[in-house]
């Protein structure tokens, strides 16, 4: 197998690189930006590929997803960006219809909707996250990368997907650097990743909760397995169930204060596939409370996961 060169870049650069590679590979890939707003993610792409490949629509807050669907029906592969709050109030119905069109009619609707989200998206942050709206749409794939490498690989896969994909990018992770394979790098949608292997408990995280979860389980060094979901729909039920069957205990780590759509989905998956193997109830820890306590936010988030892991191991 040929060695893959790896470079160290941050997640924002990884997303831009995925766009650059796919726009270079496939002339039907275009970026569609709404409302006189130029995302840093698409900086320089119009100079590389021409203005016709980075389309600025103004005004289009309420129409950008519908227009992207129209472009996709004509053979383009549009990638648009919609804020989490805008998606909830203005774009969900159009996204649901695109997903329905793809699933029910079997028509290719290759659109990617990038959704910058997370606690740092001031003014537009939905405290329960856009996941609660998105996970109940048949035909829609939802991915949430935690690392720069997965951001690049999942975005490449999303662009190549025949159906609509929502790409949840955590603004808090934009500056996080990590090793990213150069050139074409795909991460299949629907595959979770075992970040750390263990036998005593399974910690399930995604997006911005993966880093504090990893730090906590590394510090504990207690044979805890950590899964990064990466793909929220389709969910990698096989990996989750397989892990919980081995460990007998599970902890879900979330940003949201309330029991989220992701937690409901993962919990139901565990109950369905691993109930007989459980040695403890499925537990959940919210990092929202840790962030609200003030002080060192990162340390508080790690401490919250550590405490929950200790309680689970002691059950």
């Amino acid at each position, binding site marked *: 197998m040929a060695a893959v060169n790896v470079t160290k870049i941050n997640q924002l650069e990884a997303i831009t690189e995925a766009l650059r590679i796919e726009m270079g590979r496939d002339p039907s890939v275009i970026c569609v930006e709404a409302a006189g707003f130029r995302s840093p993610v698409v900086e320089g792409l119009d100079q590389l590929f021409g203005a016709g490949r980075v389309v600025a629509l103004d005004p289009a807050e309420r129409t950008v997803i*519908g227009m992207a669907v*129209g472009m996709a029906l004509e053979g383009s592969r549009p990638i648009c960006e919609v804020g989490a709050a805008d998606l909830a109030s203005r774009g969900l119905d159009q996204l649901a219809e695109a997903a329905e069109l793809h699933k029910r009619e079997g028509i290719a609707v290759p659109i990617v909707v990038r959704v910058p989200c997370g606690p740092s998206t001031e003014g537009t942050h939905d405290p329960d996250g856009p996941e609660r709206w998105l996970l109940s749409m048949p035909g829609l794939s939802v991915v949430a990368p935690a690392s720069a490498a997965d951001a690049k690989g999942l975005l490449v896969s999303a662009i190549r997907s025949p159906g609509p994909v929502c790409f949840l990018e955590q603004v808090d992770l934009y500056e996080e650097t990590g090793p990213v394979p150069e050139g074409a790098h795909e991460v299949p949608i629907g595959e979770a990743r075992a970040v750390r292997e263990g036998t005593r408990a399974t910690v399930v995280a995604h997006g911005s909760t993966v880093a504090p979860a990893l730090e906590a389980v590394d510090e504990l060094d207690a044979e805890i397995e950590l899964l990064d979901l990466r793909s929220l729909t389709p969910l990698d039920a096989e990996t989750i169930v397989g892990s919980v069957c081995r460990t007998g205990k599970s902890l879900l780590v979330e940003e949201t204060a309330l029991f989220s759509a992701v937690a409901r989905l993962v919990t139901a998956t565990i109950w369905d596939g691993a109930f007989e193997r459980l040695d403890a109830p499925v537990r959940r820890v919210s990092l929202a409370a840790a962030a609200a306590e003030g002080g060192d936010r990162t340390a508080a988030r790690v401490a919250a996961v550590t405490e929950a892991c200790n309680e689970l191991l002691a059950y």
Partner: protein
Amino acid sequence: MMLARTTEQRARTLVGREHDAEPAARWQREPIGAGAAAALRPSDRLIAPGRYMAAHLGRQDSPSVGSFSSAADLVPVSVGVAFAVGARGSGDVVLTLVDEGAMACVRWSESLTLATAGRLPLVLVVERDRTASPGATGVTSSGQALLGEAVDAEDPEAVLVAVRAAVDRARTGRGPALVACVTPRAAPGPPPWRRGTEGVEATPSERDPIELYARRLVRGGMPRADVESTLRAAEDEVVAWQP
């Protein structure tokens, strides 16, 4: 028009609703659909809800998008298709059929603004209730009026002529255009508070556009037997159709 009528009747029979009242509001969409679709060439795009079945049946082998959403949401989709079609420079046109409810949301004006600014090859055919408010027809979010023409929705030839002119305009790069097909509402249809009183007293059979057009053809010199055999042939085609 007859294909659409018979298809819908057959569909109602298949789902056990053959005794439902004849939906006169749907009848009025037959001349709109048939007239508008006849103005297109095969490579043009049609985007319309399924209730404009006459339009879809008139273009069975041509690129069309049916109803996967409310009419209002088809407008931005149409603009997206027009954007892609226009970028290719093929000279094709996108035709969208919607009812006036689509005009009551911000997506309508946003879409029109984008289509007008980009001089996109888009024609919007809007079914308008004669009793509706005479307010904005084709006004963009920036207040710019879109070129529009109003025709009688019950006259398929009038629809054809108006839509053909709009399509020609869009095809030659002069931007989007709008055709308003003005229709009297007949029950069943929108609620009374919306439809007013005009047209409500008329019985559906007197307003049947197929019957009206058949009489018109006979008056124009076409033998009655030929008209009736054409109608029967359409019925036979639907009955003989197998998936």
